[in-house]
C-alpha cells in the first residue's frame, strides 16, 4: 500500500495526516464559519468581531478533530467507508456538543444555538468536507488521471530511441560486446517505460534506471557526457513515483549536454534530510534556451504525479543560476510496510 490518497484503490476516505488534506479541511470549515458570521452579525461593522468570536470557538475544535482523525486513520480505514463515515460524524457531533456546552458557560451573554441546531450544523459541515474529498479523489483518481499519466509517461523522446539504435548499429561490427550491453540496457529501459507505473516503487530501481539511461547516452556522446552521482545517503527502500528521475536526466542530457561542443557534467544527489527524501540534479545551461516546450512538459508531468501521490507534501523547484540549471524534488520519506 503506497499512499492513502492514491489512485484506484477504492478508498475514498482522505488521509487526514496529509498536510494538504488538513489545510483543505480547515479552509472549507472556515468558509462555513465566515458565512455563519455574516448571518449572525447584526451589521457589517460587527462582522469582523463576530467572525473572530466564532473562529475562536471553532478553530480548537477543528484542530482537535483533525488530530484525532489522523491518529485514528488506521482503524477508520479498516472499518470500511460507510462505517467510518458514521464514526466520524458521531465523533464530530459529540465534540461539537461538548464544546457548545463549555462555550455556553464561558460566554454566558451570548445567545447560543440549541443543542439540536449545533448537532445538525456539525453533521452538515462534516458531510460537506467528506463529500468534497470523495469528489476530489474521484476526479483525480480513475480513468482520466490514469490515462493522462500513462500517455505522458510514454513520451520518452523518439529522438532518443532512434539515436540509440543508430549508435548500437555502429557498434555491432566493431564492438559487438558493447552493442549487446547497450541493447540490454535499452530493453530494461523500455520494460520500465511500458510497465504499469501507477504505484510507488523503491528509489534504488529509479537510480538504476537512470544509470542505464546514461550508459546508453554515453555511448553516443562519449566523453562529452560526464556524470557524478552522490547516493551515499540514499535509503534504497524509499518509495517514489516511478519515472521521477529518468525524465529529469533525459532533459539534462538534451538541454544541457548535447548543445555544448565540449559537453558537461550532470550531478545527481539523492539523500534524506529532515525526514524528507530529496533529489537534486544540476546540469550546465547553455546561453540560449531553445526546445523549452519539451522541458516544461516533462516537469509538469512529474509535478502532477508528485501532487497525485503526495499532495502538498512534495515539491519540485527549478532554478537557473550562473549558467547552471538545478532542479530539486522533495517528498515524504516513505517505505513499504514490512
Amino acid at each position, binding site marked *: 500500500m503506497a499512499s492513502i490518497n492514491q489512485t484506484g484503490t477504492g478508498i475514498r476516505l482522505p488521509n487526514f495526516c496529509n498536510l494538504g488534506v488538513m489545510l483543505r479541511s480547515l479552509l472549507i470549515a472556515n468558509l462555513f464559519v465566515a458565512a455563519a458570521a455574516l448571518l449572525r452579525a447584526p451589521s457589517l461593522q460587527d462582522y469582523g468581531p463576530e467572525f473572530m468570536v466564532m473562529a475562536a470557538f471553532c478553530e480548537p475544535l477543528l484542530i482537535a478533530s483533525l488530530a484525532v482523525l489522523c491518529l485514528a486513520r488506521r482503524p477508520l480505514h479498516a472499518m470500511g467507508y460507510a462505517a467510518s463515515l458514521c464514526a466520524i460524524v458521531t465523533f464530530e457531533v459529540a465534540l461539537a456538543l461538548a464544546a457548545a456546552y463549555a462555550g455556553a458557560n464561558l460566554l454566558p451573554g451570548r445567545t447560543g444555538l440549541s443543542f439540536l441546531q449545533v448537532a445538525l450544523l456539525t453533521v452538515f459541515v462534516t458531510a460537506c468536507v467528506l463529500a468534497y474529498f470523495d469528489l476530489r479523489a474521484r476526479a483525480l483518481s480513475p480513468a482520466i488521471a490514469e490515462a493522462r499519466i500513462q500517455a505522458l509517461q510514454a513520451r520518452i523522446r523518439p529522438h532518443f530511441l532512434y539515436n540509440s539504435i*543508430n549508435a548500437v*548499429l555502429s557498434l555491432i561490427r566493431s564492438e559487438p560486446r558493447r552493442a549487446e550491453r547497450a541493447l540490454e540496457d535499452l530493453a530494461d529501459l523500455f520494460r520500465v517505460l511500458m510497465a504499469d507505473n501507477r504505484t510507488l516503487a523503491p528509489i534504488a530501481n529509479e537510480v538504476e534506471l537512470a544509470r542505464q539511461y546514461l550508459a546508453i547516452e554515453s555511448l553516443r556522446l562519449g566523453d562529452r557526457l560526464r556524470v557524478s552521482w552522490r547516493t551515499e545517503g540514499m535509503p534504497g527502500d524509499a518509495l517514489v513515483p516511478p519515472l521521477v528521475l529518468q525524465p529529469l536526466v533525459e532533459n539534462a542530457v538534451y538541454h544541457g549536454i548535447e548543445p555544448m561542443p565540449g559537453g558537461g557534467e550532470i550531478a545527481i544527489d539523492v539523500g534524506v534530510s529532515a525526514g524528507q527524501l530529496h533529489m537534486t540534479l544540476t546540469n550546465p545551461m547553455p546561453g540560449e534556451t531553445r526546445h523549452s516546450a519539451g522541458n516544461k512538459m516533462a516537469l509538469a508531468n512529474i509535478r502532477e504525479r508528485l501532487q497525485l501521490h503526495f499532495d502538498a507534501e512534495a515539491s519540485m523547484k527549478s532554478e537557473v543560476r550562473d549558467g547552471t540549471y538545478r532542479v530539486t524534488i522533495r517528498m515524504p520519506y516513505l517505505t513499504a510496510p514490512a
Partner: protein
Amino acid sequence: MSLAQGDVPRILVADDEGPARSRLRDLLDEIRDNFPLAIVDEARNGKEVLAAVNREKVDVVLLDIRMPEMDGMEAARHLAGMAQPPAIIFTTAFDSYAIKAFEVNAIDYLLKPIRAERLLAALHKTRAGPNVSSQALAAAANQPRRHLSVHERGKIHLVALADVLYLRAELKYVTVKTAEREFLVEESLTHLEEEFESLFVRIHRNCLVARAAISGFERNAEESESGWAVVIKATGEKLPVSRRQHGVVKQFR
C-alpha cells in the same frame, strides 16, 4: 552542383556523435562498389563543416541537423551562398519540426538509422538534380542564424551577429558593419529584418541597427529628416533616423 559523369564525388560526413559518423563511414564503404566515392573529412558541428569546405573540395555533405555550436540548418544556409555549393543530404533521427519543414519545402533528408540503399539513392540523386535553393532552406529554418556569411574568393567567412553594429542596404547588396570592418552580403534587408527582429531595429528605409549597439540619440542631426540620429556605441557614428521611423527614438528613451 551536379557532377560530371565519371568524377568521384568527395563526401564530407558531419555529425556530432562519433558512433553516428562511424556508421555513415561503414555504409559509405559498403556502397563504394556500386558508387565510387571518396570520404574527404569528418565534422562535428556546422562550423567544422564550413572550415572543411574552405579547406578542400567537397561535393556532397551528409549533414546532421541537431549539432552543437552551429546546427546543420544554419551550416546549410551558409553553404548555399557559395558560387558552387556542395550538394547537401540532411540526416536526422527524429525532429518532427524539421521533417515537416523539409516536406513542405521539398528538401530531401535521410532518417537515422540510415539504410545503405537509401543512402545510395540519395547520392545518385545529387548527380541528377539541382541543389536545394537558399530560399527553400530559409523557409524551412525555424530559428534565426547566429552568423552572416560573406563569400570571398570561394571561401566562407562568418560574421557573428553579435558583432554586427548595423546593416545598410546599398543597391543590390547589404553592407554589414562591425567595429572592425565592413562586409557586403547578397541578401534583402527586409528578409534580414524579419529573421533578426529581436536583435535589430529599423531606423531608416535602408538601415537596421543592432539594439545592443545603440549608445543614444542625438538631436538636430544634419542630413536627417526627423532631426534625430542614432549614435553607435563602438564607433561613435551617427546614423540618421527617418521621419517614418521616428517612433524608435521614443521607444528607446
